[in-house]
């Protein structure tokens, strides 16, 4: 009887240790959040930019680090130095865009087309009033949503 109890205790302990190790290993190696499947806040490009332009502190609390689905008109399509596609969505502020670094390059896109991009909002960059350079609001790990 005593021997059985001991066996059960050792077995339980072993299971707990293996399970803890497995959870730890999973968490340690877990990749980034699956943007495509994640819930998102839906917003227009101009509304998003206006929010940061008007009150960046409040906009940061509301949007920074969150997954957004942004609807807007393509102003420019280019590539960064890592050959990732960068799509700029127009805003009402001249020279300022929603600057989206794409996770997958999309073909058959053209400027002037209205699209929806889903990605993580990283906040607004730095404007330079002396240079007349407006900051962009950035999205990373962005996907095109059909």
């Amino acid at each position, binding site marked *: 009887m005593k021997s059985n109890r001991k066996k059960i205790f050792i077995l339980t302990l072993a299971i707990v240790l293996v399970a803890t190790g497995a959870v730890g290993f999973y*968490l*340690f*190696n*877990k*990749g*980034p*959040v699956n943007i495509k499947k994640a819930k998102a806040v839906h917003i227009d490009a101009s509304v998003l930019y206006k929010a940061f332009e008007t009150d960046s502190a409040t906009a*940061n609390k509301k949007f*920074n*680090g969150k997954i957004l689905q942004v609807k807007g008109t393509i102003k420019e399509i*280019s590539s*960064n*130095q*890592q050959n*990732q596609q*960068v799509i700029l969505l127009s805003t009402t502020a001249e020279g300022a865009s929603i*600057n989206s*670094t794409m996770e997958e390059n999309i073909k058959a896109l053209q400027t002037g087309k209205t699209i929806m991009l889903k990605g*993580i909002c*990283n*906040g607004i*960059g*730095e404007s*330079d009033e002396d*240079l*007349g*350079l407006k*900051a*962009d609001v*950035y999205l*990373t*790990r962005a996907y095109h949503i059909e």
Partner: protein
Amino acid sequence: MTTKKIIATLAVTILVIAAHAQKVYTKNGNISFFSKAPLENITADNNQVMSVLNQQTGEMQFSVIIKSFKFKKALMEEHFNENYLESNLFPKAVFKGAVSDISKVKFTTDGIYNVMVSGDLTMHGVTNKVSTAGTLTIKNGVALGSSKFIVKLADYNIAIPKLVKDNISETIEITVNCEYNQKL
């Protein structure tokens, strides 16, 4: 308007345009960092760096959104933002400085020019003087600024928790690559 006033206005306008033409910028430059650790090396990339270079004076500015650093592992990214750089409190790192020997760079001639950059780097709410060697590569009239330098975490009040002290390096290597493909 008298002829003199018209000429003066034109001269000022031309000067302003000429001054602006010397400034180039990018809103999608690249900064990456590398930290050697016994358990696993840590790397992250940021492709949303804003940088402006004045080709005439050598003045240079970088603005880096900390949350734009992307890691392969979610836990690393979370620890980097919450425990180390505290990106909610200090959302940006900023460098304001200059290329000290800009006069030797011929922006109209393709080539690789070795330069020295120095200025103030503000990160995690702390500002320190930084001086490093770099290159300006000119290709088809576009400048690519590159540099690699080491930052000591303690210099920016970035504390490593005791529990992981042996597994995290006290320094990080920062690599800058910014292609100034936009003109003001």
